[in-house]
């Protein structure tokens, strides 16, 4: 008869109504600011810059190669290369970003910058509570705001960070072996010379060198952290 379905439906909603007071499983709502669901490991929001060591400015892995700036589809990255080369924390002179700005109101979280970066210097953050009352200045993150330590990277993406560290360590080992071989050759060539560590510098003038070194030191710390 007409109306049977309505009665059935009414019974169903009544069951839900009463049930939501009795059983807590029915209420799946998470009361957000107080309760939080831990973010998934592969969650990504906006990029950040990884630095090694304690000091964010000298430890930045970024060498201002500007690949990410060129690849960024919405063009939200702005990099100014430094005029001088500053010794990074291993003491090797490198360019560094004098300015590194990301406009997160433009960024679309595509992760292309991360994929193209040869130095593992830029990674995706999981921080999403970026609400601000200044929509221009507040959403334009400069390099200081973007810089996060490698420990932080390990904290938010443990698996990925471990992979990155392993890769860097491997590269580092390779280059070191190469450097050692070159050094040995150089030492054989110029046996008369007293100071041996000098030629190693010229032989290992490759781009991958400083981060490899940095990663080695980090992987020791990170390995303990895992």
């Amino acid at each position: 008869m007409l109306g049977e379905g309505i009665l059935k439906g009414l019974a169903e909603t009544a069951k839900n109504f009463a049930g939501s007071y009795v059983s807590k499983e029915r209420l799946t709502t998470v009361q957000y600011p107080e309760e939080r669901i831990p973010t998934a490991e592969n969650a990504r929001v906006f990029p950040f810059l990884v630095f090694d060591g304690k000091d964010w400015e000298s430890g930045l892995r970024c060498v201002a190669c500007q690949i990410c700036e060129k690849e960024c589809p919405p063009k939200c990255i702005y990099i100014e290369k430094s005029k001088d080369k500053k010794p990074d924390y291993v003491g090797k002179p490198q360019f560094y970003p004098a300015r590194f700005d990301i406009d997160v109101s433009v960024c679309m979280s595509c992760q292309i910058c991360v994929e193209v970066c040869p130095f593992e210097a830029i990674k995706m953050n999981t921080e999403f509570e970026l609400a601000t009352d200044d929509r221009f200045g507040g959403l334009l993150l400069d390099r200081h705001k973007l810089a996060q330590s490698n420990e932080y990277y390990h904290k938010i993406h443990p698996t990925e960070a471990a992979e990155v560290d392993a890769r860097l360590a491997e590269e580092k080992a390779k280059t070191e072996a190469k450097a050692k071989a070159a050094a040995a050759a150089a030492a054989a060539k110029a046996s008369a010379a007293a100071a041996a560590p000098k030629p190693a510098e010229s032989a290992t003038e490759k781009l991958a060198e400083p981060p490899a070194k940095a990663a080695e030191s980090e992987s020791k710390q990170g390995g303990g952290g895992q």
Partner: protein
Amino acid sequence: MLERLDQVFVLFKDWLVAFLPASWQGVVGVIICVVAIIAVYPTLFALAVLMERKGLGRMQNRYGPNRVGPFGILQPVADGIKSLTKEDIVPLRADAVVHFLAPVVLVVAVFMGFAVLPMGRNMVLVDLDTSLLFFFAMMASTELSVFMAGWSSRNKYSLLGAMRAVAQMISYEVPLLLSSIVIVMMTGSLSLVRVVEAQNHFTGILPNWYVFTPWGFAGFIVFVIASTAETNRSPFDLPEGESEIIAGYFTEYSGFKFALFFLGEYVEMFAVAGLGTTLFLGGWAGPISFLSWVPSWIWFFAKVELWICFFIWIRGTLPRLRQDQLMNFAWKFVLPFTLFNLVVAAVWRFMGEGWLRWLVCWALVVGVYALAGRSGMRREKIGTRIYRYAD
């Protein structure tokens, strides 16, 4: 003492009025009543909105608003402050005068209906001889305000919503009126006070409400359906179907005028609920004879709130109808059923006392319901759909 409590509002009004010279007493008394009505129903409206949001939330296994105040009970206050402080935007091409008048007309017409609604023993603003007609006249005027709102906004969504609303309200006004006619036939009066008095006696401990008679029950069902449609509530909320036409006829309203529409809609809900209570559920009469000491106004407002809860329940249950389903339902099922209900009422009236008329009338009502439901709501068989351009 209990009688005093029953009449507490009336006595209070008399006490207030007694301070004034005799020539003023009548006018001031009416003004006090009007102010009371205008104060009480918006408060109930705030309560109903909260109840609706919490109740709907629970039906969908959510919490509902729970941030403002303990358990979110101050949510209506926050909503009110928000809508009062929002900017009042009038579209550039809108007809400013009509756009302004529409919510005013709605709220005025809706509040007028309460003038004749008996909310307790001796608690009626004016006991008109034709109060039922007056009530329907006022409800009919709300259609015009809906049209004014939709037309003056110069917005396609608004106009569509208004046209849907007007068509729907006209279609369902007929069954609404006809379902009340049985009550008029039985009471022999259009006065709502008489209607309540006719129901305010008991057989044994059970009340003699009209809803317990076959024709009254049928009328009640139709009244519930038609009043849901009249107030544009779900499942008849096509005029303001958010997913289709944004907010229907009040798409272009913001701030205080939007709040007025919202208020008008809910107060109209209270008005039809109050009318339905008065007509079918005994108005302010108590449900059981030994409970008749409870003040009459408590019963009235309890029944109205119950009715509102039912509206909310329905809203949480049923999906929105389609336009053709809405019209088919009105003209093919509700209207024939209501018309036949008049015949049942006449049969009841002329069969005389006895169990036989109960049997005959119930059989008639149930039989016609089944028949009308079967033939009027027959669905067309839809074969396999072929999408010519899809492949």
